[in-house]
């Protein structure tokens, strides 16, 4: 199933477009944040104002170019949300779940990338700005990005509830519970508003490293599962059929346990 053939003739081309876009956008996002701007892993919260000036200066080009790319392409993130909202629509639960998810995550774009793009761009564009102002922008960027996890918390709970109540078997039930794990990690990030040092600061072992490991796993899993949903989808209303026979069955860690 090549990408091009999917996007031209396939009756599921809208879904494949959304799925490939999801993969592409998350890849771009990771490259920009981890590679280009080097804002992940995040800078240290306890930096003095002068040190934040150095931090901005050392990353100036990366910050400006990287976040410009997100400024242009950030809207592409809507494809992931749309696809997930569709998967929730495909369930037997009320449409309210799908709409809730859609609205929550469109709001999530604001702390999810808009604020950090603005704060870091403004911080990098005038290196001669006063150190206190630079530190303020540094805080604004990182705290708005890491600390505002309430949206994702509630969103995960909505998806979890929808999955657990669903009779159309769109997602396996263990993924519903994985949403609970993800929701709990969003709780863990909250103390980053309180601590400048230690494991619960925005760069801490618990609040960042373990959190990102869980979130990364969760994201990888749902991207894989969304693909399965698209393959199985029959555009109907009832339970989703199993994957068509003859497809090479990829290794699945719970293939024997979860029927």
């Amino acid at each position, binding site marked *: 199933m090549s990408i091009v053939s999917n996007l031209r003739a396939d009756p599921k*081309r*809208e879904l494949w477009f959304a799925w490939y876009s999801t993969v592409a956008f998350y890849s771009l996002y990771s490259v920009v944040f981890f590679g280009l701007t080097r804002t992940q892993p995040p800078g240290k919260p306890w930096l003095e104002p002068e040190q934040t000036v150095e931090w901005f200066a050392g990353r100036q080009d990366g910050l400006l170019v990287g976040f410009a790319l997100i*400024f242009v392409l950030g809207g*592409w993130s809507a494809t992931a949300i749309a696809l997930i909202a569709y998967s929730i629509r495909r369930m037997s639960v009320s449409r309210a779940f799908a709409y809730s998810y859609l609205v929550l995550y469109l709001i999530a774009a604001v702390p999810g990338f*808009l604020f950090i793009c603005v704060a870091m761009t403004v911080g990098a*564009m005038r290196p001669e700005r006063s150190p206190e102002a630079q530190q303020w922008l540094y805080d604004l960027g990182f705290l708005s990005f890491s600390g505002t996890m309430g949206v994702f918390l509630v969103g995960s709970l909505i998806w979890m509830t929808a999955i657990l109540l669903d009779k159309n078997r769109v997602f396996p039930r263990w993924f519903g519970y994985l949403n609970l794990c993800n929701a709990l990690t969003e709780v863990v990030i909250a103390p980053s508003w309180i601590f400048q040092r230690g494991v619960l600061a925005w760069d801490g072992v618990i609040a960042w490293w373990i959190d990102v490991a869980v979130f990364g796993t969760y994201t990888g899993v749902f991207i894989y599962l969304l693909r399965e949903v698209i393959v199985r989808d029959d555009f109907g209303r009832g339970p989703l059929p199993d994957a068509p026979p003859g497809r090479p069955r990829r290794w699945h860690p719970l293939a024997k346990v979860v029927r």
Partner: protein
Amino acid sequence: MAELDGEVARPGSGERVILWSLPAVVVIWMAAFLLFPGFVPPMSPRASATEVADFYDENLSRVRYSMILFNWFCVAFIPILMLIAERMRGMAHRTPVLRYCVIGVAGAAPIVFLTSTVFWLIAAFRPDRSPELTLLYNDLAWITFTCGVPFLVGLCAFLALAIAYDAQERPVFPRWVAWFNVVIAVALVPAGFAGLTPSGPFAWDGLVSFWVRNSAIGLWIVVMAVALRQAMDREPGPDRGSSGDPARTEIGAEA
């Protein structure tokens, strides 16, 4: 498999009211745009803190009132954008995914304008504060306003794709609307890079990032309003019942 559950909204049911609100919204937006002394001509990123502070000092009232107006009405475009999303129900799509994409970006787009007005208003709030701080808020406002194009680019791109995928005898929007959206998306892209340079055509006061960007947005509003009106005219009226176009399936058409 395809139950005919189609609840395509009929143009008679209040949609014309929303459509006719558009000229009023446009007038208010243009008034706010022209009233704001920092737009015509656009403020320079190269201005020093003192120059920026002086600007706010001299133009306090105009900044405040124009931005308050802008703030009130930047969300006024949402009903129009939702009208476009409603038209998408009539497209020959198998799923509502593209419509959800449009709703996603349409909902987020006004937040950009809203945030930038907040920063401008804060900049104008205390004329006696340090010029450094006023410069900071001014920078935040301009970067948010100019570079904050992701949702608009997304909107144009998703609309263009949705139209391209609308393969039926009488598509909801004609092909040229798709190409138009592609052109507008391309016109908006450079503005995202405005933070990279304080001078030249790509700076936030430059030809490309300011004039081309804002004209593109204005043009999009006008052209899409016309296209929207035509699409609504093409749809069956309330007395003729639902359109029953066989190319449409129900999941794409209903919520």
